[in-house]
């Protein structure tokens, strides 16, 4: 060690800002093993579960009646892993915040960047970018793997512009190509859905600070509240259900041109996307409010 190396660059210009906070958050995110384990689960569960379900559904095709064939959605089978991934990304999103509170390192973080909204923005941007890239890759790989599985079972692409009637009457298992109407959108929105859920979890993390509480609330939003609403009379539940985050997700990944049974029950894909994004903004704003208002 020599004395010369100690000199730090001059601090005269600029100030610590979002760029530095992002680098800091990225370093923190990549330097714990739980991040990589969770991302591995997203990829493996996403691709593996989708391939498995596609395989099972393909085997059932020959015995399906018209109603079941109408519901046969090769795109949605390919995204079965989302059911698992939505909880994994929620845990990551909550943990990157609550683990700082449980260890007390949030104080070090906020001392290094006293403008707290910058910390929140950096955390949100880093985790959202990572989750977006990983889940989009997973979604598209899952899609191609699933269609390959269906093709291996003798599946064939239906002619362009096929209707639900064509699908019901088809003797072969329908296979979707990414250029089919709605297919690209459905696969792409899988990653968007999971990314928005991650941000919701980040917001909950900042609002609640406790790991167990944040994850419980997150899981409650996705699993428990839908169950509770189902118990309500259908006149009430019917008008609420479509606004639940889990059903917004369903609306985002369903290929509506081939389906009829969700018509009117779900929002349109883009309306669902916008609404979920608004939820995410709302929860993150709530988290920011708690972060700014409460002592660290």
């Amino acid at each position, binding site marked *: *060690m020599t*004395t010369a*190396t*100690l*000199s*730090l*660059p001059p*601090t005269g210009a*600029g*100030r*610590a800002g979002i760029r*530095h*906070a992002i*680098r*800091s*958050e*990225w*370093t*923190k995110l990549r*330097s*714990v*093993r*739980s991040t990589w384990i969770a991302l591995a689960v997203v990829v493996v569960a996403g691709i593996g579960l989708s391939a498995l379900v596609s395989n099972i559904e393909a085997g059932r095709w020959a015995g399906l009646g018209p109603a079941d064939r109408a519901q046969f959605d090769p795109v949605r089978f390919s995204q079965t892993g989302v059911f698992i991934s939505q909880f994994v990304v929620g845990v990551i999103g909550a943990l990157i915040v609550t*683990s*700082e509170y449980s*260890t*007390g*390192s949030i*104080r*070090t*973080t*906020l*001392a*290094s*960047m*006293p*403008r707290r909204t910058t910390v929140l923005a950096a955390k949100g941007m880093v985790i959202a970018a990572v989750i977006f890239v990983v889940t989009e890759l997973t979604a598209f790989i899952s899609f191609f793997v699933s269609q390959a599985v269906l093709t291996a079972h003798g599946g064939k692409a239906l002619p362009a512009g096929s209707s639900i009637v064509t699908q019901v009457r088809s003797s072969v298992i329908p296979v979707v190509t990414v250029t089919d109407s709605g297919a690209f959108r459905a696969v792409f929105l899988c990653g968007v859905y999971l990314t928005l859920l991650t941000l919701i979890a980040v917001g909950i993390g900042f609002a609640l600070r406790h790991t167990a509480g944040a994850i419980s609330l997150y899981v409650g939003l996705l699993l428990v509240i839908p169950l509770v609403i189902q118990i309500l009379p259908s006149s009430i539940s019917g008008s609420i259900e479509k606004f639940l985050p889990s059903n917004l997700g369903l609306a985002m990944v369903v290929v509506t041109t081939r389906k009829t049974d969700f018509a009117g029950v779900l929002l349109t894909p883009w309306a669902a996307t916008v609404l979920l994004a608004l939820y995410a903004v709302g929860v993150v704003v709530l988290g920011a409010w708690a972060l700014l208002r409460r*002592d*660290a």
Partner: protein
Amino acid sequence: MNPEAALVLSVHAARRHSSMIEAAGLSKNYGRTRAVDGLNFEVRSGVVTGFLGPNGSGKSTTMRMVLGLDRPTAGTVTVDGRHYHDLKWPLREVGALLEANAIHPGRSARNHLLGLAHSNAIPPVRVDEVLGLVGLDAVSGRKAGKFSLGMSQRLGIASALLGDPGVLLFDEPVNGLDPEGILWVRTLLQSLAAEGRTVFVSSHLMSEMALTATDLVVIGRGRLIADTTVDDFINSNTEATVLVRSPEVDRLAGVLTSIGASVAHGGNGSLLVTKAFPAVIGDAAHTAGIALHELTPQQASLEQVFMDLTSDAVDFHGGRPRTADEVPS
């Protein structure tokens, strides 16, 4: 501290001058409990300033307010005349050790520091420097969760030094350290101060502060008790006492009383004498023909002074249960 570290630290000697922490009317309420109550003090650069108080007296709360982590209910605290929030490169201006274990247990020491370094555009090479400085370079890749408390303290000190700041805050830095580690911290704090930095160290160990600090800020129950120097603190709060041993204790006591001294029996043939200088006592004994076996001026320990002074302000007297809304700080 190794000599190399001393060398490295001395590079910036003389470039710092007036870095100062100033609290004015600083107060903090938690619910109905007043944790910090109208503190006014200044911490000057160039010396180690001890921040003394019993547990729960508001030391940590005060430090968190300096760092902008807790918002004061009233009053202000500034660093170099600026609020912490307004510092452009906080880690390069103020370094802090708050809790030693405030580190993600799954992250390596090096990555922990690297994340911090990036937040203030501190080059990664500086991370390795501070790791060497605190003697953790050999374990820099190990997970912080596997560190002993002493190693965690060293890592916390490394993060405080990361930005080479002019102002340093240490909350109970010797907690969990072995004697060698304590000596290391003491030397480090003093050399940091000698370079002209502002060094503010909290402790409930009065004996440690007597050895480390020059200035003292003493609080009890959130209130300022003294803002002074260690020497003045002891001198102004104690009467000079002299321990005297003699085979003729009783006769000596009579002689000393007759010249105006206050005498207390200390057991084992000893007397504790106040209101008389050692030379006066010796002369008086000689004149009376009394042999002396010992004649020792007693310096009251800072510990004792502190106990006496804060006895009214201690939150944890035996038998008095704390009420539910009292928040430990």
